[in-house]
């Protein structure tokens, strides 16, 4: 490494290098030794920094030198001196390059646009990658923050339960500030109309983990949220968190909520607001732009933070209710692996102590916070980056091809300049100069394109991509882009330059009229073949993702999305203190909604399909002994009677729920097809009974009365989960839990948007204080679930199209050039009576041979790397024959089209003109 560094110091002006080089090298060695002692990662970072520092500083020193020389040069030439000669030559070259590029506007434009396309797309995607994946999270020392996860049979990644949190907090010695939080939403009332706001209930230690600082006021005190409640009560708040009632009355308010609802009034701090009907004191205002990890992941902003109630006397034998996200900081000097080993060991001890059945395979592990926040997007963006990398390569190949063609055309000019006394280095410098200028122009144009593209991607990209809004074309991106464009210029400028100078050393003008141009032609053909091969890979990727998107679009979510409006209603516990009150609200609200002329069906339900996990619940089937750790389980959906008609879910056997399935009646349950197939493969499920109470005595058996069609709960790309449905009232009765938050769905006889206002008014009549949130036509919910695959397919499609266009230009270029080269030969052939058709097929054949080679090579590469794409594909194999068949046809057609123009030109050659031309 030091050797490379030493060699890289040549970028410094010689005077600086001579005077300071050795000394710098010594300091570098000392620092490097230190960095290497701190581990490989530190060392890598050190060398990255050292190289960046070197390039920046040497560039500065050079610039300074040039500026000085220019100042002297101008002065010197005014005085007739010779010191400014080199500077003059440099300026002359620059001026000359500019003139020569301007003389060939078509060439210049093609090259600049080609480069701009590659660089623009590249910098835009790199910006996304930079904003979404590479940028550190906005907390101090973010790589020391970890998430804690539970894992058990069939559940590779689960949240923590209260008991697990308490145990981990008390027992883990390699973590500090072990914290949990859960999210929910509450009604903010008082003042203007009620507002539904997202709230995160945290243990105050999370403020330490994230190093939160208030904008105004103070943070939550460490003791906030500590309560003494019965386990029953604390178990009652479930994943959607009905928290205000069970947390102490303090809150931190997000900066934007404070600005928007309270006009940024600083006196709000210390005053109370009404949260779900309960008075809560605003302890402080969060800093502008502060976001909790979940907010970054879901691209929302933190509105309210309240203490999570933690009951120190919690009965730790209650291990269920895995509902809390958890995070902590690694203690100083502790590595992730060490802490992970500790938590794994602790979790194993839980099973040894009999807290979990051994068959449950309970475990726990840590993952870096960033992994959780950024999720799969690095895979998606990595794929896109690879795609733009290909595009950039194709663009570079095109420019190289253009350059090679041009250098041949210009050999007369070079010969003349050389004959007039220009040295070899001078001519090479001239060519390089031109290329650099070209690359810089391409780079600048590409940067402009990139800025536009980033803007476009942010506005039209999927909102489910975390931190998308953070993507900006920053300095790093600009540097990388410029470096790439300069490198392109150097590399591909060198090829023709060296080429020319080698030819010259063979002797001047010897091959002026040669027809073959042998090696040069072969080189260009190779470039075109490589370019086509890359293009095939890109088109294949785009084709596969498009096919996959098509397949996803055909997936039946199990819900009829037409004319269906959904929204979320969270009832404040203060006004709806018990199960009966909640049930009464839903009965009245649904009746009122159904009475609207445009509404056909309305119902309430727990989890919205297509949007993610709703959690599962173990159950017992009557007559089958429970195997500890291997209980049957399914997603638990709680619904009101009209649910299946409202959502358009087909009942395959038996019946759905009716108004008669209420409190006090015989308990019933509807299961979905997947659950029926798993647990009743050979018997009729109808009439059998299950119980959600697997441990206690009071079984409250529910009879299976129907089998419903499967619904995709997790999204289009995930198979349907096993699910069972319980009527709300009977669920309340059987479990003793209260569902305060429920989704509501309304199916109308016209568009879902048209339902919005009548529904809002009707609900206002039932409870004017109520706020409902996330109202959207279900169509939109379905669209959102497809947004990431659509984004990938769209971008890859665009890249593939650009690649195809560029490759066509490439084929055209190489054929047009060869026709030009063989002008004389063609003329002679024609004079000797060759017919037009044969000439046409000669040129076309050459084009198709080149494309054939590129196609074959590309297919080979695409098929061998296609597996990398598989995880992002749905319902399509990475070697899908249909896609590849289509690619072959498209590419051959494109190749034929781009070969045709040069072929026709060959046919139109006038033998007399051709023979006289040289």
């Amino acid at each position, binding site marked *: 490494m030091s050797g490379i560094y030493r060699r890289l110091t040549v970028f410094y002006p*010689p*005077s*600086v290098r001579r005077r*300071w080089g*050795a*000394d*710098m*090298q*010594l*300091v*570098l060695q*000392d*620092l490097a030794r230190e960095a290497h002692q701190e581990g490989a990662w530190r060392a890598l970072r050190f060398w990255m*920094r*050292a190289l960046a*520092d*070197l390039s*920046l*500083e*040497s560039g*500065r*020193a050079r610039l300074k030198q040039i500026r*000085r*020389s220019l100042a*002297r040069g101008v002065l010197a030439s005014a005085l007739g001196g*010779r*010191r400014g*000669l*080199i500077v003059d*030559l440099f300026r002359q070259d620059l001026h000359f390059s500019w003139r020569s590029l301007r003389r060939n506007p078509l060439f210049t434009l093609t090259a600049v646009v080609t480069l701009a396309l590659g660089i623009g797309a590249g910098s835009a995607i790199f910006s996304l990658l930079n904003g979404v994946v590479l940028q550190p999270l906005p907390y101090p020392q973010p790589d020391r923050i970890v998430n804690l996860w539970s894992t058990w049979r069939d559940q590779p990644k689960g949240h923590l339960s209260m008991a697990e949190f308490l145990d981990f907090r008390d027992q883990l010695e390699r973590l500090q500030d072990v914290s949990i939080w859960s999210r929910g939403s509450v009604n903010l009332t008082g003042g203007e109309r009620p507002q539904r706001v997202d709230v995160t209930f945290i243990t105050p230690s999370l403020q330490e983990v994230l190093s939160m600082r208030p904008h105004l006021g103070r943070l939550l005190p460490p003791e906030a949220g500590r309560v003494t409640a019965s386990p029953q009560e604390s178990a009652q708040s479930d994943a959607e968190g009905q928290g205000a009632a069970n947390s102490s009355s303090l809150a931190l308010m997000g900066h934007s909520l404070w600005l928007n609802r309270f006009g940024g009034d600083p006196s709000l701090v210390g005053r109370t607001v009404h949260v779900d009907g309960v008075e809560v004191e605003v302890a402080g205002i969060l800093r502008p732009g502060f976001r909790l990890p979940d907010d970054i992941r879901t691209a929302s902003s933190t509105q309210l933070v309240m203490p999570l109630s933690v009951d120190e006397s919690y009965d730790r034998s209650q291990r269920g209710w895995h509902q809390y996200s958890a995070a902590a900081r690694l203690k100083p000097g502790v590595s992730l692996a060490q802490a992970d080993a500790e938590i794994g060991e602790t979790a194993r001890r839980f099973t040894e102590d009999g807290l979990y059945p051994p068959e449950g395979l309970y475990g726990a592990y840590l993952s870096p916070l960033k992994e959780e926040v950024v999720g799969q997007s690095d895979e998606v963006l990595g794929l896109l980056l690879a795609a733009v990398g290909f595009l950039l390569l194709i663009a570079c190949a095109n420019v190289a091809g253009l350059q090679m063609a041009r250098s041949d055309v210009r050999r007369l000019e070079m010969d003349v300049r050389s004959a*007039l*006394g220009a040295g070899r280095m001078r001519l090479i410098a001239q060519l390089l100069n031109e290329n650099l200028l070209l690359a810089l122009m391409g780079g600048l144009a590409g940067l402009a394109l990139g800025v536009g593209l980033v803007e476009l991607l942010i506005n039209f990209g999927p909102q489910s991509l975390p931190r998308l809004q953070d993507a900006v074309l920053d300095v790093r991106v600009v540097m990388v882009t410029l470096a790439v464009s300069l490198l392109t210029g150097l590399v591909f400028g060198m090829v023709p330059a060296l080429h020319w100078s080698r030819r010259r050393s063979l002797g001047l003008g010897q091959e002026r009229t040669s027809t073959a141009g042998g090696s040069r032609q072969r080189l260009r053909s190779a470039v075109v073949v490589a370019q086509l091969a890359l293009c095939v890979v890109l088109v294949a990727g785009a084709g596969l993702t498009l096919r996959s998107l098509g397949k996803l679009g055909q997936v039946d979510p199990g819900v009829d999305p037409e004319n269906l409006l959904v929204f979320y209603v969270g009832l404040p516990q203060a006004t709806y203190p018990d199960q009966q009150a909640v049930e009464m609200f839903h009965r009245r609200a649904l009746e009122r909604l159904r009475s609207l002329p445009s509404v056909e069906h309305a119902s309430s339900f727990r989890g919205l399909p297509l949007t993610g996990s709703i959690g599962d619940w173990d159950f017992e089937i009557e007559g089958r002994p429970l195997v500890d750790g291997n209980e049957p389980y399914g997603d638990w959906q709680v619904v009101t009677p009209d649910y299946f008609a409202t959502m358009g879910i087909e009942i395959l056997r038996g019946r759905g729920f009716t108004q008669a399935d209420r409190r006090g009646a015989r308990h019933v349950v509807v299961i979905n097809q997947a659950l029926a197939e798993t647990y009743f493969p050979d018997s009729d499920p109808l009439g059998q009974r299950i119980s959600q109470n697997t441990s206690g005595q009071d079984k409250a058996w529910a009879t299976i009365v129907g089998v419903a069609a499967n619904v995709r709960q997790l999204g289009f790309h995930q198979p349907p989960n096993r699910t069972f449905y319980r009527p709300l009232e009977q669920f309340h009765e059987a479990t003793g839990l209260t569902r305060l938050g429920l989704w509501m769905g309304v199916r109308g006889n016209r568009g879902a948007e048209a339902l919005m206002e009548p529904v809002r008014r009707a609900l206002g009549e039932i409870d004017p204080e109520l706020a409902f949130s996330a109202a959207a036509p279900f169509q939109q919910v379905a669209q959102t679930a497809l947004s990431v695959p659509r984004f990938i397919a769209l971008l890859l499609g665009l890249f593939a199209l650009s690649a195809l266009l560029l490759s066509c230009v490439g084929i055209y270029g190489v054929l047009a050039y060869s026709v030009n080269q063989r002008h004389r030969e063609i003329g002679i052939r024609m004079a000797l009576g060759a017919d037009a058709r044969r000439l046409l097929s000669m040129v076309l054949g050459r084009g198709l041979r080149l494309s054939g080679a590129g196609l074959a090579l590309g297919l080979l590469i695409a098929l061998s790397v296609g597996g990398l794409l598989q995880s992002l594909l749905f319902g399509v194999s990475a070697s899908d024959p249909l896609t590849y068949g289509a690619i072959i046809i498209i590419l051959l057609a494109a190749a034929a089209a781009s070969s045709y123009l040069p072929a026709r030109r060959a046919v139109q050659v006038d033998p007399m003109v051709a023979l006289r031309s040289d």
Partner: protein
Amino acid sequence: MEKSRKHSRDETPAQPVQQAAQPPPEVYLPMKPVDFMVLMALLQQPRHGYGIVKDIEEQSRGQVKMMPGNLYAILRRLMKDGLLEESERLPSSDEDQRRRYYRITDTGRGVAAAEARRLRHLVSSAESAELIGREEA
């Protein structure tokens, strides 16, 4: 056409700094924080490049980690301004003999002191505005 000459590149001979022509220290103010830190590093004793880097790291409690390119750009500039010079101190026998030591000039000392006074004034303004308490300064 004129033939180019080999030695047309400009060479700056190392000229001794003329103390008498030094402008007053205030001309150099305000200093860049790193420049100031480099001068501070040399107040007590002459140091070599690595020594300066380590001292600055300590001064800044690990926040400023300089790289050779940046360091020597600063050293070059400060030497040109006459605030630093190469020290006659020779590397000890167990050190690389190419190592050079740098020391602060009297002008440099004056400029550093002026900068420190400027900073003190700034801090005391912050204190009187009650941005920070006096004991924190």
